[in-house]
């Protein structure tokens, strides 16, 4: 099985472990990730915030390259990239004037932006192959975790058309598939502060601490995410968060692909678990046995 792959900037930098775990899991599941050649940044929130044209042109360029490389689907693990790619595609498909403008910016002939590839987030992608995953589970992930989806996977529902908007369940299903338990909690899609990680750390502290609070109160052993921004806010900004918590917490934040990777028996190294700021320490009795890679 072959699928297009767009890691995006975060996955080459601050969230390398997400990239590593996606690739490792893909290899274990015998999925060929065809990286979009010469891909560029999706523009992320800054383009969205202050440069509307580029916020559509940059993702359009990525999708155009994927299309030219013959890719019908593009797997985009980063939730922010996923959102930008989807929104860019949506704008191009629904607004002819925008499409023409973007064609000029890209310097591509009219019609090039027809039938751009489908954009898939990692949950969406893995949910398509439950049997394949289940067949390869070697050590069940026997932990109780909180699945945290964040904003951009589910919103706005008219564009993403993914899962239940206010109470998504697809990630929970994946965790259950590899033997884990998930808590039913109230903050699955509450915002963590996203791109304010650097410029308004206090906002991130306030929002993320509420999320951590609910998860720990309901006895989650870890938080599972699918977004580099959510991850860095909950992981990297833990000091900021703990300052606002009744009781500081050290539960780790895992990417969904790391959870699945553990269940598939992949090594901590290959899953990049060491790269986290909050050490990944799950109750020992249920930690999977080390497998030499």
């Amino acid at each position, binding site marked *: 099985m072959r699928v297009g792959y767009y890691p995006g*900037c*975060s996955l*080459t*930098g*601050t*969230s*390398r472990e997400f990239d590593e775990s996606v690739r490792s899991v893909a290899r274990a599941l015998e999925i060929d990730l065809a990286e979009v050649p*010469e*891909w*560029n*940044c999706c*523009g*992320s*929130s*800054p*383009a*969205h*915030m*202050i*440069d*509307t*044209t*580029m*916020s559509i*042109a*940059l993702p359009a*360029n990525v999708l155009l390259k994927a299309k030219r490389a013959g890719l019908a689907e593009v797997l985009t693990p980063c939730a922010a990239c996923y959102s930008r790619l989807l929104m860019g595609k949506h704008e191009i498909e629904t*607004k002819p004037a925008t499409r023409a*403008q973007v064609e*000029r*910016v*890209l*310097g591509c002939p009219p019609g090039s932006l027809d039938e751009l590839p489908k954009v898939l987030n990692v949950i969406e992608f893995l949910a398509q192959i439950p049997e394949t995953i289940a067949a390869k589970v070697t050590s069940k992930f026997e932990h109780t975790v909180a699945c945290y989806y964040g*904003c*951009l996977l*589910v*919103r*706005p*529902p008219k564009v993403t058309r993914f899962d239940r*908007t206010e109470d998504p369940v697809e990630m929970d299903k994946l965790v259950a598939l590899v033997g884990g338990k998930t808590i039913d909690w109230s903050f699955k899609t*509450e*915002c963590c*502060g*996203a*791109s*304010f990680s*650097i*410029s*308004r*750390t206090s*906002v991130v502290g*306030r*929002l993320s601490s509420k999320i951590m609070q609910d998860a720990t109160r309901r006895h989650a052993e870890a938080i599972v995410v699918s977004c580099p921004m959510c991850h860095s806010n909950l992981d*990297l900004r833990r000091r900021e968060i703990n300052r606002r918590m009744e009781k500081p917490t050290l539960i780790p934040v895992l990417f969904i692909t790391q959870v699945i990777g553990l269940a598939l028996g992949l090594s901590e190294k290959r899953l990049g678990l*060491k*790269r*986290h*700021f909050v050490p990944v320490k799950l109750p020992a009795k249920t930690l999977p046995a080390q497998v030499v890679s």
Partner: protein
Amino acid sequence: MGQPDTVTQMHDTAPDAPRVRCFAVKKGTNRRPIGAYFSQSEGRTLTPEKYMSCHHESPSARHSLAARLKEVGEVDVADCYQCGKCTAGCPAAEEMDVAPSQILRLLQTESPKHEKRALESMSIWLCIGCETCVTRCPQEVDLPRAMDILRQESLARNVANRAADDIVAFHKAFLHSIERSGRVFEFGMIGDYKLRTGHLFQDLGAAPSMFLKGKMSLLPHGGGSKREVGRMFARARAAKKESQP
């Protein structure tokens, strides 16, 4: 849901015009009698677009921010009935100086005084773009889109709130990084941001561990077709200049 498919123009003296297009549907066939399609009245069916085009716009309204939002972003601020649901769900509302729903209210009046207040607000910079508001808005007002346009308008008019300088700097540094490298080069971007804001020591503690964990590299990433992206930015700028002589 939403508006009915067609509206029937009604005459004062032909009040019997049925407003509904389907009546009498035969069971057992999925086709309906064609006569059911046409209303029996003197009224004519119009599509909502045509109906809307019958209304006259006031000349002053054409240059307002509200008009611009409608034209550029297909956001109609008149749709907002000030229920406050956007504000109620906004994760950043507590930090904002003007609540999101009130931003829309400021635009609804179409008065320059109120528009200025919106453009100078901190709120437009504190919007995270989480899309919670539009996801729940009963009137489907695309507030995040409105915020995008307001931010850009605020920058273009050079009235952005000074307290947002660092946020603007972050966005600019980020875009600058993309323009130069095709992708975001964090080390360079953060350096750029620090120079722009003077926040030289913020997060200094985190940096060494970032390197140790392999999360940040000192050299720009390869690939990313940086020249191509640079050209895209140049073309977009040229197009913008052309449209605003």
